[in-house]
């Protein structure tokens, strides 16, 4: 088990990220509010550099009471990292594939994070 120093806490803005390397291991660290999430930079789809993708808000479809579609919108509560290779979206809070929400499709490999004295750390095996 290793404790990897990632960056200063204030270097990451809300919904920001950084991708770091340590002995060949690449880790993406994301900030949502006061929370930090760390994932291996390896997409479970085809091995792409998922953490080097862009962050998007979740897209929802608006239905009226008659079940008619009223178009799509962004949902600020769902924040996704999108793998730049083929566009698979993963929920930054859970690391899970963000679609087909009733079933488990695939997940990113996550690491615990810690903040101490203004520094952000990831705990890796």
């Amino acid at each position, binding site marked *: *088990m*290793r*404790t*990897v*120093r*990632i*960056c200063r806490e204030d270097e990451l803005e809300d919904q920001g*990220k*950084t*991708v*770091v*390397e*340590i002995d060949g291991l*690449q*880790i993406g660290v994301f900030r949502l509010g006061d929370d930090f999430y760390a994932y291996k*930079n*390896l997409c479970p789809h*085809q*091995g*792409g*550099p998922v953490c*080097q*993708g*862009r962050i*998007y808000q979740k897209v929802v479809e608006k239905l009226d009471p008659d079940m008619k579609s009223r178009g799509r919108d962004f949902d600020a509560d769902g924040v996704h990292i*999108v793998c*730049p*290779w*083929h*566009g698979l*979206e993963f929920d930054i809070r859970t690391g899970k594939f963000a679609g087909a929400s009733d079933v488990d499709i695939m997940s990113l490999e996550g690491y615990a994070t*810690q903040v*101490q004295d203004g520094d952000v*750390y990831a*705990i890796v095996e």
Partner: protein
Amino acid sequence: MDANIVPSKAMPVQEMDVYTDTRDYLAPARRDAREMGFADWFICDIDAHHLETVHWHEVIEHIEDPVVRHQAMMYQKERFGAPPYGLNGDLGLRYQDVGGRIPHQSGQREKVEETDVHRDVTLTRRAMQALCVDKMVVFPTPMLFLGMHPQADMEVLLTRAYNKWLTERVLPGDEGMASLVLLPFNSPEEACRTVEEFADKPGVIGFTVTSTRYKPVHANEYMRLYSMIEETGKPIAFHAGYHWQDPSLATCNSFLGMHALGFAWCNIVHMTNWVLNGIPERFPKLKSVWIESGLSWIPFVMQRLDDQYLMRMSEAPLLKQMPSDYMRQNCWYTCQPMEKSSEVGLKATFEMINAKTQLLYASDWPHFDFDAPRVIAEIPWIDEESKRNILGMNAANCFGLEPKLRWK
């Protein structure tokens, strides 16, 4: 807090975008290639792409008709923000990048400092190196719509201009690059002229019909073309595409639906006509390659045609075998995008198409659904010989290529 804290280093590329170097973008594929020892494998990518419209000002210089060429050059010079001269297509209906989520599909604006070869050669080399591909066939992108061009003459002019530009200015830059030159298929005599003129050009390993079109492939006017292509020993390929002008496909309101169906539908129709009209019986040595429709459509068509043929054999009197037999013996298929969500389905598909001899690796790089060679190499239920065949040796046999290892 653990006393043993180790420092990390910020990665030089924090976020991939349209300016990211292909080698950085595909760095994980390079790592996989090293781990899997691909340098010792002959890997042939039968379907990668370049964006010919970036260099349209060069392409139009090769238009043979002097009046059209002059119009095209004036148009490119003076019209601000206009689409490429003479080219039909879907203009702004290009949603492949999912709103910027997949930047490499939007454009490759990376820096190229090399000046000794065409920019597209450098971009292709970078992808070849990252994917460990020894031979890469490049196709155009918007020109895949050419079959829907309202002016058959313009299809001929643009196809010929592109073929000339590609074979004279791009392919000579790297012997690892190859082309299945475009046929102006809506003008059969011109398609024959293309075969005559381009069959022996260096780097030309076959001929392409862009599949989005409404001419039936069994029309008598094509028999001379098929005979000529059979004579060259090089395959004819049907490269799939989509388009929003098809009324039933236009009911799809998402690119997801349009792409999923469109890229299969055009080849489903052409394959049906190809087989039921006995083209493989008429031209037994003519090899056909079916590109970029994925694989799951093939078992569907095989089963559907076999079932119906049994009841209506008098409507397909040239057949001496079942439709699926021709599809398994006379046809080759590129794997991409390889639908993998059902292992049972994929296994059955491999068996039904005889993947060991008929399946060809294709990346479709740099498009949004590209496949790296690992999609084949990591399949646990096929043997190594099959993997090597699919990744390269089947292509070597089908296209008559020397399996030269470039990255060893």
